[in-house]
């Protein structure tokens, strides 16, 4: 992989060809076994999925066990060498927070009591569909990573955790588990289907649910036992662990979900790919965006100007104080109103609060209301000042990071759309202010 020319690596993934988006791809071609070759990426090919909701409609390209074994070979016996590999390669989590995997493993090893390892496929971020796509295209890769991690850490239970409304992903995983069982492969995996609500994908919520509690975020307090000893990894992270466990070099790609006028597309690109190239790849006819949403609804806006010099590499983005989060990229066209979009998303995020913590329960709706007033051109300077105070007051005050994502988004909007804040603040809403375009699941009140 590392020997590949840079030009090729720049757009790698999906076989380095233009994406077979929107039309049924010649699946057999993609699925031809690559005997003796390194695995070229995590995905078999990209996917075009509905603009919102679970990635259910697309008919999955499915890597069955025989193809999987031809492609990457059997999972070798897991030794402590895997921890060293994970540490050396600096593998980080791909669920959004990018925590180094080795750090989580070391802390899991220090604990006592029976350990549960979880492959988290509950993709709560409404725009993200890369986890469901990965689980459907390469279920065995995720299962291998889960079982390798469980084996290394001496876990008593390995679980794939999914949202309740993601039926086809659950079916793909059940099929894969059945294949392994028939083939006599070792390792038992439970598929646990949780509720469908937003915070059912949060790691402490999963931990609590697997120990008999509600699937709601919880606080770790001295002496609390509600979450048992639970290690939660995103499914993409585990797919990468599965390749490291086989001695492969780290796959220098990132899985992205990109929402454009063409639709919502899942693709795999090289980590060094410029952001503008990703956008050009998925929608060649698009005009230059005024801003780009990175990391999804709990992510950050960046101006089109800034986006022009960014790559999708997390390390690069971190240096700019940004993050690719769970791999969501959404360009905002020049005609749209960033403040109106932010207001709609802020209301959605407020409605998705678990309603457990005061600052989130009361703070997020207050913030969303003020952003709406701002977008509508009826916010005074005092309102704007209070909005900034509220953002500071809410950040870091929840049991989970849900409110932090919402405040991050709004704070970035105030910065990136500063000209609009100024204009709307003088009671001049733009013509686009009435039409928010970002797809949102129904807001539950």
């Amino acid at each position, binding site marked *: 992989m590392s020997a590949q020319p840079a030009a090729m690596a720049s757009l790698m993934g999906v076989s380095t060809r233009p994406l077979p988006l929107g039309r049924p791809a010649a699946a057999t071609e993609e699925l031809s076994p690559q005997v003796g070759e390194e695995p070229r990426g995590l995905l078999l090919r990209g996917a075009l999925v509905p603009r919102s909701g679970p990635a259910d409609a697309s008919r999955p390209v499915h890597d069955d066990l025989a193809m999987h074994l031809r492609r990457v070979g059997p999972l070798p016996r897991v030794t402590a060498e895997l921890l060293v590999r994970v540490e050396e390669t600096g593998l980080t989590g791909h669920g959004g927070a990018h925590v180094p995997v080795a750090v989580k493993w070391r802390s899991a090893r220090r604990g006592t009591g029976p350990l549960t390892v979880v492959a988290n496929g509950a993709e709560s971020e409404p725009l993200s569909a890369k986890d469901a796509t990965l689980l459907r295209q390469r279920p065995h890769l995720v299962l291998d990573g889960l079982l390798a991690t469980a084996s290394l850490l001496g876990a008593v239970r390995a679980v794939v955790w999914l949202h309740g409304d993601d039926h086809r992903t659950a079916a793909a995983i059940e099929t894969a588990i059945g294949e392994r069982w028939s083939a006599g492969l070792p390792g038992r995996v439970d598929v646990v289907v949780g509720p469908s609500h937003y915070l059912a994908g949060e790691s402490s919520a999963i931990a609590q649910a697997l120990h008999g509690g509600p699937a709601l975020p*919880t*606080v770790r*307090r001295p002496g609390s036992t509600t979450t048992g000893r639970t290690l939660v990894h995103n499914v993409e992270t585990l797919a990468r662990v599965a390749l490291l466990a086989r001695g492969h070099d780290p796959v220098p790609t990132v899985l992205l979900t990109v929402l454009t006028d063409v639709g919502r597309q899942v693709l795999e690109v090289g980590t060094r790919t410029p952001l503008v190239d990703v956008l050009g790849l998925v929608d060649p006819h698009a005009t230059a965006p005024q801003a780009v949403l990175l990391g999804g609804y709990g992510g950050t806006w960046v101006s089109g100007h800034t986006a022009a010099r960014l790559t999708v590499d997390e390390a690069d983005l971190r240096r700019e104080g940004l993050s690719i989060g769970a791999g969501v990229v959404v360009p905002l066209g020049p005609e749209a109103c960033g403040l109106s979009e932010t207001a709609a998303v802020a209301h959605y995020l407020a409605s998705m609060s678990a309603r457990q913590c*005061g600052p989130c329960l*009361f703070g997020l709706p207050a913030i969303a209301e003020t952003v709406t007033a701002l977008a509508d051109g009826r916010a005074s300077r005092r309102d704007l000042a209070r909005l900034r105070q509220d953002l500071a007051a809410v950040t870091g*005050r929840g049991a989970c990071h849900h409110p932090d994502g919402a405040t991050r988004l709004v704070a970035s909007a105030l910065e990136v759309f500063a000209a609009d804040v100024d204009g709307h603040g003088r009671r001049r809403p733009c013509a686009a202010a009435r039409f928010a375009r970002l797809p949102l699941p129904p807001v539950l009140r």
Partner: protein
Amino acid sequence: MRGGAVRTAPPPAGAPVSRPAAAPPTERLRVDPIACRGIGVCALTAPDLVELDRWGFPAPVDGPLTSAEREQAARAVRACPRQALWLAPPAHR
């Protein structure tokens, strides 16, 4: 987070608590935002350490407490009807 080990043992019960320069400041005042119902007793018992936001929920000071502050913090911990506050040792983030 301080790396140094706490050398001095906690003072025996009944001993004067505020003895400056004795034990290094280590503990932090934490709030469990799920248990908290915004009753506000903490802000009354530990006005120097706890501020209420505009919705009435406490935001304790961040960082290690001095031994003088520790006494006030312990009062707030005891006073909370929801038992939502605790003093976290340095290792517990």
